[in-house]
């Protein structure tokens, strides 16, 4: 009975809810993050009893969250909003706050956006990101580097680190 040693789902949810929500806010913005968060954990719950207990639960749930975020991005491409997302949240500082970084990340090419949100908002390793995206670790690193290069050009006030 391999599923027997999985933690009760509630504990799994309590452990990973903050990471999942941070990732979704970074990837699709706060407005859509609520629904995507619920869809992520409901999908996880449906699959949970069949999961093997030695699974990387954090990587697994963030992979599901990534797919839900992808659905939102695809829907947006099909039905573009007449106003840019940033105008939905007038309370956010329009300058160089962290939220502003993620607005810019969302405008990057899809693979770069995916790698940067999984790396910096969800704190996955490049190996975990490669598994989540079904690409090589090298491709994940390259996409991250390309994305950061673009951001650095745009955000002169963010100091580069080696």
């Amino acid at each position: 009975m391999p599923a027997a040693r999985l933690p009760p789902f509630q504990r799994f949810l309590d452990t990973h809810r903050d990471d999942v929500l941070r990732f979704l806010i970074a990837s699709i913005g706060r407005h859509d993050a609520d629904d995507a968060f619920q869809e992520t954990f409901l999908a996880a719950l449906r699959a949970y009893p069949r999961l093997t207990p030695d699974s990387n639960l954090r990587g697994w749930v963030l992979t599901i969250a990534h797919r839900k975020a992808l659905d939102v991005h695809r829907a947006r491409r099909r039905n573009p909003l007449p106003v840019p997302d940033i105008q939905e949240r007038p309370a956010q500082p329009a300058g160089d706050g962290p939220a502003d970084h993620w607005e810019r990340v969302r405008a990057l090419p899809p693979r770069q956006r995916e790698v940067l949100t999984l790396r910096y908002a969800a704190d996955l390793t490049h190996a975990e990101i490669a598994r989540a995206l079904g690409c090589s670790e090298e491709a994940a690193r390259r996409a991250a580097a390309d994305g950061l290069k673009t951001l650095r050009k745009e955000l002169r006030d963010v100091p580069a680190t080696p």
Partner: protein
Amino acid sequence: MSLPPPDLLPGEAAALAARTTARAADEGIAQIVYARVDSPVGRLVAVATPRGLARIAYELENGGLDSILDDVALKLSPAIVEAPARLDPVRRELEEYFEGRREDFDVALDWSLTTGFRRRVLQQCARIPFGATSTYKEMAIAAGSPRAFRAAGGALGSNPIPIIVPCHRVLATGGGLGGYTGGLERKRQLLSIEDVTSTGGRRLRRS
């Protein structure tokens, strides 16, 4: 360069998680739901499946919430979420019982945490009415194994649904209090709620 993760508002993720588990319970995606229930005999954890109430656990006597849920995950399914609203009928009936306004429980029971002889004993025990008592020996006889009164004691000690399956109403044949899954003090407390006030070697009935 570094990209600080987005800040979460206080309680934001917890509130979303609670909405998600309520949905999981309502839409039948969660196989098992639980809630904590406060009572005069200490905090209880109630666990239900779609079939009914499967577990009432004295939280402290069973190693705390984590240990209680680990055990249910192992024996039934790990698809367990906290869904207080789903356990409202159980909470209400227990409240009425402890306030002396209820003698019989109406919530459906799921016996899947007990099997075989133990289940037969517990199902016989469930028939002992409010205010009455029985003995381990009578339980063994009722379960079809007259000589297995020790095993009947073990079965009652393993009761997954105490209070509602009233194993506190079963006393030792010689008139002693016997044992109890939640400690003897609780057994006395429950019997006193039912006006069974002493254990003097005979079957005690109210009225």
